[in-house]
């Protein structure tokens, strides 16, 4: 049984490392304790933006330490309800049910719109389709259309890519574009926006949706489709202007949720996000500002 004994050695080491982890971690926590720590959790779409805010905020106030994690809006809201995060970043509005749940746990939440985001519908650059109307997009994602020639493209199967159901983008897209219908069971649910970009750039028949900031950053890897509000409307490309003016159909507000009894530091951070400097970061990060 030589191998088995070899594994015991490995296990022993793993146990040792396992025991060391809490020691090291507690060291970090103690160090952070000297600074004031705020945790922000939620939307993957907003992670990039929130980290940029946090970095700038920490630069301005070296006593603050902000921990930013993603996981999806649903994850952030759950954390807010369970009181494990001070700030929740969400790309969808908190549902009534969730607000109720939070109240039951003694958390009164305050909602702040901090930026706006257009959702870009992206296809493979080799795809000949340039524009789609909302109806067509809905039909594609519900699985009513399965081939590209049904919407004016080549004779090829449509491969639908979506985010996982924990994503705020998933819910927003379902409510806003698909009129609350279910996604086709054939939709491939991907764990991250970056994976959707990768897949759409690799697979010719693919279609997916991602935040405007991500679509812009992806450059030539994917093609952004112009969207028509209905069959007779003009096709509109998503951009700062078209999102702010409301001409682009698939746009949404981005929220920060904080407790109504938030500490001064938390409020200071929210104020910073809404300040001119904060909104400049919104623009730099590829999102659309709340104020003109």
């Amino acid at each position: 049984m030589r191998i088995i004994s070899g594994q015991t050695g490995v296990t022993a080491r793993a146990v040792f490392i396992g025991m060391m982890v809490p020691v090291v971690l507690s060291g970090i926590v103690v160090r952070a304790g000297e600074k004031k720590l705020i945790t922000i959790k939620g939307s993957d779409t907003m992670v990039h933006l929130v980290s940029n805010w946090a970095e700038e905020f920490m630069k301005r106030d070296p006593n603050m330490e902000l921990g930013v994690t993603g996981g999806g809006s649903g994850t952030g809201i759950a954390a807010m309800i369970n009181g494990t995060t001070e700030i929740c970043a969400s790309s969808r509005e908190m549902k009534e049910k969730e607000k109720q749940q939070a109240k039951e746990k003694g958390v009164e939440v305050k909602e702040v719109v901090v930026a706006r985001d257009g959702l870009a519908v992206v296809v493979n650059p080799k795809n000949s389709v340039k524009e789609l109307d909302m109806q067509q997009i809905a039909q594609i994602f519900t699985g009513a259309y399965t081939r590209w020639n049904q919407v004016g493209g080549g004779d090829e199967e449509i491969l639908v890519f979506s985010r996982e159901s924990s994503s705020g983008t998933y819910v927003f897209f379902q409510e806003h574009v698909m009129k609350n219908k279910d996604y086709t069971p054939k939709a491939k649910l991907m764990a991250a926006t970056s994976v959707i970009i990768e897949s759409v750039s690799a697979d010719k028949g693919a279609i997916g949706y991602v935040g405007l900031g991500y679509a812009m950053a992806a450059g030539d890897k994917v093609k952004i489709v112009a969207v028509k509000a209905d069959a007779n409307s003009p096709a509109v490309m998503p951009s700062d202007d078209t999102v702010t003016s409301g001409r682009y159909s698939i746009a949404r507000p981005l929220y920060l949720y904080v407790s109504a009894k938030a500490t001064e530091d938390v409020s200071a951070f929210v104020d910073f996000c809404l300040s001119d400097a904060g909104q400049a970061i919104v623009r730099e990060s590829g999102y659309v500002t709340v104020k003109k």
Partner: protein
Amino acid sequence: MKRIRKEKIIERSLQWTASLSIVIVICIFVFIFKEAVPFAKHPGLGELFGTRWVPVSPQKESFGLVPLISGSVVVTVLAMLLTIPFGVGAAVYISELAAPAEREILKPFIEVLAGIPSVVIGFFGLMVLVPLVKRCFGLGTGLTAFAGAVLLALMAIPTVTSISEDALRSVPRSYKEASLALGASRIRTIWRVTVPAALPGIMAAVMLGTGRVIGETMAVMMVTGNAAIITFWPFDSVRTMTATIAAEMGEVAFGSEHYRALFCVGIILLVVTFALNLAAQKVLRRYRMG
């Protein structure tokens, strides 16, 4: 007198640490069942036999486990079809044919393969394997059950090889010597004498490998596309039970139907892997030689 008491204390605490895993297994079973049981009352166990897994829906949520189970089955069967020839073949070569120097090189590498974190394997799969599968088979996308199975095979092969090799080595020398003395060739001896003699051990190895494959999550989640459809075609995308739990556990509201349904999925996984491990141990114990 004092010394004896001290030793007793040490002995007791060691006993306690040794039994800890039993306590933990029981705790896990109790906890998982406790969270899942309310699902039986509402919406009822019948819901689990449905053919649609739509946990988030403004229309009607459905918690049919059939697509998830079929997804896990497809991926597992494919992975084992790949694992068995490679894993057992490698074990035969290492234990019976390789020169000692060769063995010293091969064995550590196989063990290293076992130690690679599954996320890293998943990353490799996403970047290298998925495009390769797509190109080789002329598919629309490489995010398929097949890609997941290949990655899982990579993870199961070391387990199967190590344990099979053990089994092959413990076949008494006298068996082989008798066969060779009767004039059988080396290869013939391996296939007709050594491998059959070690078969129970190899079977146990395969069962343990299967257990690992069913329970694996991260790599599978990254490359199978996670579409909850019922299919047995290797080049469709599938959603496995493990990936479902991992992807959805983060957002469910505690105590909701969706939350309970995920625990039901957990129970199925737990029972299957538990049964496999138990069976493998039984087989190993009964036929353990030398």
